[in-house]
C-alpha cells in the first residue's frame, strides 16, 4: 500500500513501469526497487529457503541480509531490495538459484581504474570523507551498491540534534541531499565492491552492471555502515518481521507502508523514532516492547509516542511470531530480573508486521578481508576494527569511519569521515596550512558530540579501541 498523504514527506512518483512477477503483470513507479514495488502490490513472500522451503521476505531492505534474493530476467540470486525495477522486467520467486542460459557478454572485460582515495559506502561518513578529501585536491571515488546516495540519512525524517556546525535542526533527508550535491561527480551508485586485495597496495574489485572492474587505490576509507541485529524467537524468519531500518526505507524513501498494524521490539531511540514515523504514515502501532526494565531512548521521543496512545511495555520480550506464510500476530512475554520468561504473562497481538529495533552491528567484512585487527567492543556494537583516533586501522592505508568503525550516529559518522579523509590528505602529502587547524577542530567537534550522557557508551568504546591500537604500536 502506497502512502498518499504524509505530514512531512511528499512522494513525487515518476512514470508507471510494467513488469511481471511469477508470470503475472504488475505495475510500479520508476525509481522503486523490485522489493518495494512488490510490497506495494501486497506481495510479501519473495522466495523460499533452500532446505526447508520456508517463505522468505526482505529483512534489511538495504542490501545487507540477502533474504530478498529472487530470479530477475533469468539471473538467480539478485538482491531485489537494492535493484531498481525496470520496464518489462521478469521477476520470479526462487527456491534455489535456477540457471538460465547465460545472457551476459561472451568475453567479459575487466576495466581498470585508479584513484588516490577510494571510499566504500555513500552514507554520511563516506560522503563527508569524500567531500573533504576532494576539497584538498585528492582524486576520490565513492562506491555504493544502493540506488540512492546518503546511506541511512535518506530515511531519517526527524531533525538532528548535535551542534549547529553539523547541521543540527536539519532533517536527515535534507542532509543527505546537501552532501550528495557536493559529492555527486565522484559517486558511483548501484556498484558493489565485492573484494579487497592487498596485492601491490589496495585493490578493490567492483561489480557494475554485471561486469567486473578493478580499482587501484592509494587509500581506502571503509564506511560500510552497519547491519541490523536479528533476535532469536520462534518464526523470526517469517516475512513481516522487518528491521526498523527496513521499515523506514519502505515508508520514508518509497512511500510504502510495511503493513496495517505493527509491534515494535526495542525502545531505544530507533524503536521510538520509527514508531512515531509509522504513526505519521497512518500505520497502527499496537505497542513497543523493551526487554530492559527502562526505556533506552530519549524521553522526548518516548513521550511523543505515548501521547499518541502507544503503550511501552518494559521488561517484556517477543516470544514468537504467528503465521504460516507471513506474520499474522505476535506473542510477547514479561521477563523477570534475570531475563527469564514469566509463565502466564504471554500476551497476543494481532499484527501483520513485527519491527525489530534491537541494535546494529558494524559491517566489518572488508576489514576482515584485508586482515585488520578486530576487537569485540560491546559498547560499539560488537566486532569492531581496531583503529587510531585518526581512524586508520591496523592495515596501513585502510581507514574506518561511521558505523563501520563502531556504532554511533549520523553526526559522529560525518565527523569520523572527515577525520579519516584528513588523515588520508596528510598521508598523501596534500596538506595545506588549513589542514592541521581543520583536523584539530574536527577532533574537538567529535569530542563534543560524544560528551553527553548518551555519548558515554560510544566514548568508552572508542577509548578501548584506541588503547588496543596503542598497545599494538608498542
Amino acid at each position, binding site marked *: 500500500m502506497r502512502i498518499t498523504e504524509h505530514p512531512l514527506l511528499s512522494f513525487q512518483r515518476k512514470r508507471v513501469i510494467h513488469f511481471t512477477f511469477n508470470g503475472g503483470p504488475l505495475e510500479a513507479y520508476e525509481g522503486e526497487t523490485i522489493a518495494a514495488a512488490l510490497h506495494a502490490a501486497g506481495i510479501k513472500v519473495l522466495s523460499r529457503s*533452500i*532446505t526447508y522451503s520456508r517463505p522468505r521476505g526482505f529483512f534489511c531492505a538495504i542490501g545487507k541480509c540477502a533474504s530478498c534474493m529472487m530470479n530477475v530476467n*533469468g*539471473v*538467480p*540470486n539478485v538482491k531485489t531490495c537494492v535493484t531498481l525495477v525496470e520496464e518489462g522486467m521478469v521477476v520470479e520467486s526462487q527456491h*534455489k*538459484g*535456477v*540457471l*538460465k*542460459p*547465460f*545472457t*551476459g557478454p*561472451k568475453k*567479459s572485460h*575487466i576495466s581498470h581504474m585508479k584513484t588516490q582515495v577510494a571510499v566504500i559506502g555513500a552514507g554520511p561518513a563516506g560522503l563527508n570523507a569524500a567531500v573533504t578529501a576532494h576539497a584538498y585536491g585528492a582524486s576520490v571515488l565513492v562506491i555504493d551498491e544502493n540506488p540512492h546516495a546518503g546511506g541511512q540519512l535518506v530515511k531519517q525524517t526527524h531533525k538532528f540534534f548535535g551542534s549547529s556546525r553539523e547541521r543540527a535542526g536539519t532533517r536527515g533527508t535534507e542532509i543527505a541531499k546537501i552532501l550528495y550535491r557536493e559529492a555527486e561527480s565522484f559517486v558511483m551508485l548501484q556498484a558493489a565492491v*565485492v*573484494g579487497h*586485495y*592487498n*596485492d601491490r597496495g589496495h*585493490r578493490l*574489485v567492483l561489480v557494475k552492471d554485471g561486469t567486473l572492474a*578493478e580499482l587501484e587505490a592509494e587509500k581506502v576509507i571503509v564506511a560500510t555502515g552497519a547491519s541490523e541485529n536479528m533476535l532469536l524467537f520462534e518464526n523470526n524468519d517469517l516475512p513481516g518481521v522487518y528491521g526498523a531500518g527496513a521499515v523506514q526505507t519502505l515508508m520514508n524513501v518509497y512511500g510504502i507502508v510495511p503493513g496495517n498494524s505493527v509491534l515494535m521490539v526495542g525502545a531505544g531511540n530507533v524503536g521510538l523514532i520509527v514508531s512515531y514515523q509509522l504513526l505519521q504514515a497512518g500505520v497502527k502501532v499496537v505497542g513497543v516492547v523493551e526487554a530492559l526494565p527502562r526505556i533506552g531512548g530519549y524521553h522526548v521521543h518516548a513521550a511523543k509516542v505515548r501521547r499518541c496512545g502507544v503503550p511501552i511495555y518494559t521488561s517484556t520480550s517477543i516470544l514468537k511470531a504467528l503465521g504460516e506464510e507471513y506474520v499474522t500476530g505476535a506473542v510477547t512475554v514479561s521477563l523477570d530480573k534475570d531475563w527469564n520468561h514469566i509463565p502466564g504473562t504471554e500476551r497476543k497481538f494481532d499484527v501483520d508486521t513485527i519491527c525489530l529495533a534491537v541494535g546494529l552491528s558494524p559491517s566489518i567484512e572488508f576489514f576482515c*578481508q584485508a*586482515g585488520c585487527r578486530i576487537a569485540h567492543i560491546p559498547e560499539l556494537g560488537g566486532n569492531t576494527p581496531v583503529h587510531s583516533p585518526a581512524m586508520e586501522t591496523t592495515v596501513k592505508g585502510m581507514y574506518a569511519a561511521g558505523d563501520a568503525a563502531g556504532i554511533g550516529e549520523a553526526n559522529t559518522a560525518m565527523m569520523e569521515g572527515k577525520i579519516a579523509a584528513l588523515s588520508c590528505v596528510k598521508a598523501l602529502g596534500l596538506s595545506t596550512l588549513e589542514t592541521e587547524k581543520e583536523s584539530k577542530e574536527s577532533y574537538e567537534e567529535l569530542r563534543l558530540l560524544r560528551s553527553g550522557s548518551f555519548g558515554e557508551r560510544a566514548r568508552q568504546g572508542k577509548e578501548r579501541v584506541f588503547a588496543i591500537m596503542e598497545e599494538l604500536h608498542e
Partner: protein
Amino acid sequence: MREKAEAVIIGGGVTGCGTAYSLAKKGLTDVVVLERGGLCTGASGRCGGGIRQQFTTEANIALAMESVRLFEQLSEELDTDIEYEQGGYLIIAYEDDVDQFRKNVRLQNSLGLHSRFITPAEAQEIVPLLNTDPIAGATFCQTDGHANPFRVVHGYARKAQEMGVEINKFTNVTDIVAVDGHIQAVRTDKGTVKTDTVVNAAGAHSRDIAAMVGVDLPNKPYRHEILVTEPLEHVLDPMVISFKTGIYFSQQKHGSIIGGIGDPEEPSSYNLSGSLRFLKRMARTMVELVPAFGHLNVLRQWAGLYDVTPDAQPILGWTEGVDRFCQANGYSGHGFMVAPKVTELVAELIVDGKPSMPIDDLTLSRFEGEITGEAYVVG
C-alpha cells in the same frame, strides 16, 4: 590434558582425527590428539572435498580405491551424513593428453578400477552444460565423487572421543623430547604428554614437527586457492577437472559450486591470503568449460596449503633414526581422498606392527633412491 598416552597424534585434520578413530576402533584408546587451532581448520577444512581414484601410480590408485570402499560406509559408521556423492570425476583431455590418458586408463583398469576414456559427445551427456569445443575427450570414473570434509573430520573426532581418545584443540606443540632415538614426551604450550609413539599428521607443518627430533622431511608448503559460488539448482553430477589448466570444480549437495585452480607460478610459502589473480584465472577457465556459469556470483574465496613431496605421494610409516615416529603427511593435495585407508594402515602399523597393505614404497627412506612420481596433480 593427560599426562601420558600410548600414542600422541599431532594434527586435528582428517588424517589426525581419522588415525585417532582407527586406533580407537582397534582398541587403542589411550591416545591424545594435539591441534594448534580448531578441528579441520587446516588443509582438510579448506579443500574441495574431492574423492578420486583415477591416479597414475599403483600405490595411489590402490589407496584411493580402498578409501572409496570405506567412504561408502562412512556415513553409517560415523552416524553422520558426510554428504558423499559418487557423481564421478570427469578428467578433461586435450589433444596432446589423449595417448597418455588412454595408457593411464589401462593401468587403472588392470587394478580393477572402472575408469574409461570417453568422447566429447559422451562427456556432454554427463555434463550437459559442458563446452566441448576445446576438448579432445575425457576420462570418467563413476565411483569417484566428493564428500563434506567437515562432516568427515568431526564425525571421526566425535567417534574417537566416545571411545576414549582425548582431543586437545588450541594446543601448540612446542617440542618432542627424544633420547637416543626414542621418543619420551611431547611438549605443548598447555603441558607435556609422556609417550613413546608420535604420529606426525601436521599437514604443511609436518616438516617443522619432524625437525623437532632432527628428522628432515622434503615436504614444501604451497598455497592453493579455492572459491565457492552461490547455490544453484542441481546441474553438475561429477567433479570436472583438468590437469592441463589445473582447474577442478564440483557441485555440493546444497547447490554451491566449489572449485579451485593451481598456479604454476605460485612459490612455496605459508601464504594463506586470497588473490585477485586466482579469482580471474578461475573465473575465465571455468566459464570457458561451462559458459552458463558466467552468471554465477562468487560468495567467498580462500586458500589452503598443499603439503608437497618431491614425487607428489604421501610419506607414511616409521622413520629411520627415531623409533616409533610415524609419518602421515606429504599428501600433495590428496590427503582427504585417501584418508580413510591411510589412517587405517597407520593404526595397523602402530597396533599390529604391520599394515594390511604394503606401504614400503611410501616411507621417508624412498627419497634416498630413484623417484617415480604421481603425474595427476592439480597445479
